[in-house]
């Protein structure tokens, strides 16, 4: 029976064929991207981000070389993200983690986030990436997200990111804006925790 299942698996992989959406790629990049997607699937990595990255390149009329390079780099980042976060990580988390790694976050930060937060890591990792994109030094951004991730909801983290971006837009140095927003968010989190504890001051 095991042999039957294995044979069927191989047959289905062959029969499944390339993703029809990749027909939009040019004849040079299509077979390479298809091979990269197949390799990712074989490694149990999510393939949808790779397909989307290739389609983005096709729509933006990027050259075949750039499309292949972008997809290959994303596949590597997804693999590194899974190494840091573990094999049970969800595809959205892996996508966000790959972007965080690309932004310069050390893998150990991802592992630490996984350790301290029980909920999904998608938003904390996205906030970390967005902060770096806003000019916040990666160490400051990572420390800020780590300090908030354990107790904050997704909406709190998004609001934190908006506060930092708002202060930066008003002229505050990115690191200072981050520190101020962390302090404000910590006060709110603590206040929320007190409110959720009835019968205590």
């Amino acid at each position, binding site marked *: 029976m095991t042999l039957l299942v294995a044979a069927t698996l191989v047959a*289905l992989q062959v029969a499944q064929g390339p993703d029809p959406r990749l027909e939009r790629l040019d004849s040079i990049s299509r077979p390479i991207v298809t091979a990269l997607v197949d390799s990712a699937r074989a490694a149990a990595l999510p*393939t949808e981000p790779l397909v989307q990255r290739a389609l983005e390149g096709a729509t933006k009329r990027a050259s075949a070389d750039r499309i292949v*390079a972008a997809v290959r780099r994303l596949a590597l980042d997804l693999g590194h993200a899974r190494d840091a976060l573990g094999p049970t990580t969800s595809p*959205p988390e892996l996508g966000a983690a790959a972007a965080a790694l690309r932004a310069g976050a050390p893998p150990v930060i991802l592992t630490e986030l996984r350790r301290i937060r029980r909920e*999904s890591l998608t938003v904390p990792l996205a906030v970390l990436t967005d902060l770096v994109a*806003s000019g916040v030094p990666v160490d400051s951004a990572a420390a800020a997200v780590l300090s908030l991730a354990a107790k904050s909801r997704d909406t709190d983290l998004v609001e934190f990111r908006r506060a930092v*971006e708002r202060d930066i837009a008003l002229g505050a140095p990115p690191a200072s804006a981050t520190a101020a927003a962390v302090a404000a968010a910590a006060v709110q989190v603590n206040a929320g925790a007190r409110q959720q504890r009835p019968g205590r001051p």
Partner: protein
Amino acid sequence: MFEPDEELIGRVVRQLRRPVTVDAGLDARVMEQVRRLPPRRAGGAAHAAWGWLTRPRTVPFLPLGALAVAAVFVAVVLWRLDRPSRPASMSEFGFVVVAPRATTVSLVGDFNDWDGARTPMQRVRKDESVWTAVIPLTPGRYRYAFLVDGVRWLADPAAPAARDDEYGAPSSVVTVGGS
């Protein structure tokens, strides 16, 4: 009236007093018959169903049939592997861009296969330079951009920029949380 016949009574009494010899195999034959009786329905339908379910059987099958079952199983597993787990919630997100003098504006991104024809944006009646689109999004991180008149790319000034932008044209990022 009936007159008792001494002779008759005597013969009956003698017959009754004769010792009866029982066959030694009687017990075994009786128990064999008992075992052949159908089982008693002590628990009703549930008991009968349980008995049916737990009674061992020999099921003949075709190798082709087993292959078909295995193929269906593998197909389901592959289908599940290649897709993110079903999200608990889907939120509607509004996108707004100011594009004066634009004829068409499309919202394109990871959520619509970067297909410029999939999500055309609508003009706001009060201000014809403002374009909007509302789409449902599941939790995740999405790259997107606005495509103006099919040729010009605009990032969303109200959203974080996509840092990993390898294609030269700007993109933005929207993150949808679950809590």
